[in-house]
């Protein structure tokens, strides 16, 4: 089960990588907005999925950008029934951008305090079974 999840994460990383290479962010964003949260019963513990993502990402072909990781993670969570949102943040000085995943407003698998200096500039909401975000 665990290995299957890791392989699935790895393939998903490859797929999102290709998408990010051929499409600009607005196109990826509209794709994400259209992508609904699955109606199936969510997996008990999304941390399992995060761990699988970690392992898949360290064996990926190259270092993941925050957007790449967050996009893939968001899609996988939605596929497993969690209303995940992709959030993009910006830090002004020094200029730096970052992307992460939130479920019900809570960052998923991020170190505490790591997001303190970022201001949210975009939020790709989940539309689906559990709720509709603004």
């Amino acid at each position, binding site marked *: 089960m665990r290995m299957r999840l890791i392989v699935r994460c790895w393939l998903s990383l490859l797929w999102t990588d290709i998408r990010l290479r051929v499409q600009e962010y607005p196109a990826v964003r509209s794709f994400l907005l259209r992508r609904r949260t699955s109606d199936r019963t969510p997996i008990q513990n999304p941390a399992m999925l995060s761990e699988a993502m*970690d392992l898949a*990402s*360290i064996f990926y072909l190259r270092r993941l950008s925050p957007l790449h990781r967050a996009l893939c993670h968001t899609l996988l969570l939605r596929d497993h029934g969690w209303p995940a949102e992709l959030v993009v943040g910006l830090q002004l000085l*020094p*200029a730096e951008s970052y992307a992460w995943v939130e479920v019900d407003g809570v960052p998923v698998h991020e170190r*505490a*305090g*790591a997001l*303190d*200096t970022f201001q949210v500039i975009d939020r790709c909401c989940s539309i689906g079974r559990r709720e509709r975000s603004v």
Partner: protein
Amino acid sequence: MSVLLGSWHYEGRPVDLARAKELGAPTRRYAADADSYLVSGSLCFGYQLLSTHDRDWSSREPYTDAHGNVAAFAGRLDNHHELAGLLGLRSAATPDVRLVLEAYRRWGEESFTQLIGDWSLALWCAEHGKLFLARDHAGTQSLFYRTRSGSVVWSTYLETFLADGASPELDREYAARYLACVPTKSLTPYAGIWEVPPGAYVRFDHGATRIMGHWTPVTEDRIRYRTDGEYEQHFFHLFRQAVERRTANGATIVAELSGGMDSSAIVCMDDYAKRERFGPDAPLLDTLSYFDDGEPNWNEKPFFTAVEEARGKRGIHIATSYRRRDFSVPDRAYPLPGIDGSAAAWERALEEHFRSHEKRVVISGFGGDELLGGPSNPVPALADALVERRFGRLREGLVQCSIAERITVWQMLYEAVHSAYGHPWSKGPDRATLPPWLRISGSIPARTTSGWMGEAAGKLPSTRDSVAMWHSVMETLPHRLPGLLTRREYRYPILDRDLVEFLLRVPSDQLRRPGERRSLMRRALGSLIPIAVMQRTRKAFLQRGPIRLLDENRGVISSLFDSSALGDLGLIDASYLRKMVQHDGIVSLAQHRKPLMRAIHLELWLRARLTPETRALREPHESVYLEQSSVSA
């Protein structure tokens, strides 16, 4: 900090007392409790006392023994009990300087290794006609020297060398290193004037000068205990000892309290020790905290106030801002670059606080990030596993560290191989990161293998990393960046020699663990430090202020480099720099922030030094410290 100074004409020219006092005049204001000189033939020893602990023996320095040996000792000898026992003397009745001379007579040059504490010394060996200048393991007290025209001159402060109207040439290697933000080592901005390296002594044998180490951070011994608890107990004992050594009676002390783990741990440990020893009403340390409400990444107030509430004592709070700087040329010359014209006003304001509270010593938590397991660098430990062929540990470490750092195992493995078998610590500047306006090619040797770095070559990667880390700590100690008007004595409990030797020997997984920085410190001192500080997830750091300062002062900076002294010296392309400052975006400014600030500071320093009317080092100085109390000659 007391001041050592003196000269030795090794070609035999005699020194007179008037000349000796001339030598001491520029530094008299920094150590005004007493001064005394010893002149004998071609040798002159001077000592200016600023009493900062209860073993200062002012009337006995410089000290001469029955064999004609002479020594002057500034600082604090923490192992005076043990040393006096070994030498058959009574510690309470023997001044530190005498212990130093007796130790030298017993063990010769090996004696410097025996001295534990914060110190610097000058020692004349009459029997062999040799002079020694030495500093403690961490270089907590400065000591400079110059050899020229058959003589050696030494002093705690650079002002001594600039007092006789001389204007030494700029040392190009120092300037290049300073501009490129690489370690300046024992260089000073002045050609021919050097600093005695930390953990080393300089031996002058007539015309021959030799630098020898008496302490080294290079070690491959490891402390191994069976349980975490044993490491924690040992750490607790050494940390307490380090704090108590520096907060003992004898001087009014203020502790910097930033609200970070290190400064909070020092203050809380001192409270704990004092309350245990003197009861609940024991007088507690005064604290000094800086804050800047305009800096969102440097919001320290909640944390230092949490410590204050826990200990029941409010400290001195000083509002500061990086943006107070104005890039103006200071109205007087000063010995080292790093400040601008706004520094004098800031120092005067700060001095008021110090004077009103009668403070002489600052306790600093410096060195904690590097020694106690702050930001992690897992690569050396992985490289160790590779070199030692422990492939199971390597595999496990690669996965754990790659996850923690969010990079691929392939990249992590490449870093480990590079660290193990490459040349990972060339101290030359990384050309790719240098700003395009720097013109320093050829000024900095590509690799340095002398001193500790040379000693560590061929050792395990983690040992080399520890040595490089120790070097970086030595380069950035706050007492090395003196201001325009004042000099302060800093004490660094985390750099205590016994504690440092312990921390360099414990396994790295005791210091930091995945997801837990400063693991050993947290486990050992968790009960002393307020929860708000313990749960603090990241250290505050200045980010916005410096960049906004540069952005808002583009015009001032550009005009500063209109007729650039650095440009005239061929160290920078001033027109390129001006164009960059005028036209580049804020991202580019942020990218080159550090070298740009360095260029500005060096330019200001050169201008203050080169403008005749501002050479105030030779002019009467405003009194910024205690009134002169006594003079003995």
